[in-house]
């Protein structure tokens, strides 16, 4: 618990310093210490995660790298039951937090070794391990793949 708080503070500190740089993800709602704005460096400080999967909007399988959504929520000591993910085009989806604990859902910055850019599906894309679980090959999960992610609101 102590360690978690320290890590959280370090993360917050880093975020504060990076304020001048481009914020790419904002987290609001039931998290420790109020709203947080994170730049790329702060997100890259999280334990890296990778997965290979196909998507419904592209052909073939792709290699995604980023961090686990549950690692981010744990670091921020998030308390809610669901997260509303909001994209740059104001597309908003409510995702149950249980998804992130049942499946290794990642927030990807890179696809096939190339950074995701804002004029494609970047900078951040919520990716489910679709190929590893039959249950995820469902239209009710497909709409949770939010790209151009900019805000997470924990409820």
């Amino acid at each position, binding site marked *: 618990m102590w360690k978690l708080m320290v890590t959280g503070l370090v993360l917050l500190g880093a975020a504060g310093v990076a304020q001048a740089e481009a914020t790419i993800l904002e987290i609001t709602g039931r998290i420790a210490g109020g709203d947080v704005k994170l730049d790329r460096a702060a997100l890259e400080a999280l334990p890296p995660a990778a997965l290979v999967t196909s998507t419904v*909007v592209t052909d073939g399988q792709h290699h995604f790298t980023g961090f686990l959504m549950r690692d981010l929520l744990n670091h921020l000591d998030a308390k809610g039951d669901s997260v509303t993910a909001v994209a*740059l085009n104001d597309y908003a989806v409510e995702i149950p937090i249980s998804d992130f604990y049942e499946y290794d859902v990642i927030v990807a910055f890179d696809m096939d070794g190339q950074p995701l850019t804002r*004029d494609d599906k970047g900078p951040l894309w919520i990716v489910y391990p679709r190929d590893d679980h039959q249950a995820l090959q469902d239209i009710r999960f497909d709409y949770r793949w939010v790209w*151009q992610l900019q805000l997470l609101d924990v409820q």
Partner: protein
Amino acid sequence: MTRSRHAILGLALPLTAVLVFAVLLTFSMLRMFEMQNAMRVGAEQNMLWVLHQSEVAALRMIETAALAELGEADQDDLALRLDILASRVALLNDGPQRRFVERIGMEDDLDRLQATLASVKTIIDDFTQGDGPRLHNTLDPFSRIFGRAANKAMIAEWDDMGGRLEASRGQLHQIIASLIGIMIAGGTLAVMLVMALRESRQRNRMLLRERDFSGLLISSSGEGILAVNREIKCTVWNDAIAGMIGKPAEQVVGRTLSQVAGFFETAPVRIGIEQALAGITSKMAYQPLFAPDRERPLYVDLRFYPMWNDVGIVGAILFMHDASDRHAAKQREAQIRDRLEELVTERTRDLDSALQRERSAADLYRNFAAMVSHQFRTPLAVADSALQRLLRRGPRADPGEVAERAGRARSAIAGLTRLVESTLDAARLDAGQIGARRVNCDMSKIVRTACDRLGDAAPDRHIEVSYPLLGQPITYCDPALAEQVLENLLSNANKYAPPNTSVSVVLRIDDEWLHCEVSNSGPPLSEKDREQIFERNHRGANSVGVAGTGIGLFMARTLARMQGGDVTLQAANEGTTFRISLPRFGEKTT
């Protein structure tokens, strides 16, 4: 015929039903899998939403451009909106979306928009408020093209969905039809099952009734019935067999047969049961069955049968029938038959001997002339020679000599007379007209008379006679016939003995028989002669140049046998010995 047709129908119908059931089930399942797959694919198409979002992005871009023209939005806002719009175009160019755009025939429009994005980007990079109208004009086609594409997407997707729904409806119809078929087949099977169950229950009832009836039959049968399992333990034991063995069923059922009674340990019964357990039926009659409380054994007929079920032999069954009465009757019958056989044998023997006598008599008559010529010649020769000498001597003969010669002639004639009488008597005897004139007589006298007579006929021949040292040579015979036999043999010996050799007569006695052996020296008889010498009219190889008819030995043997005796040729290396055997005593009177 109808029965076999019924059986085929009874088998074919359920088989057909099962087949129809399986085929329809497989068919409907395949159809359902197809539908499931179709539903999954359909759920992933959402182009209308994608195009709508694209149109929104374009409109937001135009809105931001208008604000920028008024100075209420800066370059960063424009860059963000452009990036969002560019990301939409990029999304539409990704695999599945691009293919859909091609399907609705708007790929050229998309490519044009993609190209336009670059010029939009150059305007925004150096944006001034004066660039507003130019930016408007450049952005104009985006919302228009996206709107049109959304329109087409809607139509395509609805067409698609309509087609899919129609296909699904068709598949559902097929599935429903299959299900109806399955229900019919299942119903048929269920009905048949119920019928089969009813039939089987009815059969079971009948079987039970039959079993009860069999049980009744077994228990009330007068025949003993027992059954054993493969371990030869008793499983069935009815009242009849309980009576025969003397043990009630309670003491027997469940126990090994060998523990029940010694009867089941006897070899035939044990083997019978073993064979029945090996599948061989057998039966045996009149087996003695002893029971402790019975004085005499029962005689029982046994029948062993194997007991089968579907799998194999499960035991053996033994039927035991009390055949004591039949056995006793059979014993009596056998005794009567034996007695009858004895009687028949006895009668046959009597008849045989009568026939034999008849034949002998007939033979005698037939050969009477021959016998007369042979037997009568010697005494006639003796009488003739005595009378001739008397005639030759004439008056010179003194009274003593006359008396002596006449006496000799008379003696020979008396012998002839005796011979005639005894022959006739013997013939009558053979014919069964008179009894045997056998008496006890002294053989030594007969020997002496016969020897004297040979001495008269052949004065040159020396005769040696020896009598037994102990006991009287008494014999039970007809003296005339005995004398005749002896004379025959002596005459024979005299004929075949070389000159200047003697003829011997030896009398011997034992417990039963008197033997008189007449021997002469000379070469032994050939084997062939020995065999045939007693045959009528047979003349030996050495008889050439010797007077004779070949009847002497036949006569001697026949006459001896008529008196219960025999004449045999004794084995010898040298000379010839005939033996007369006569019984010493008369037939025992009981």
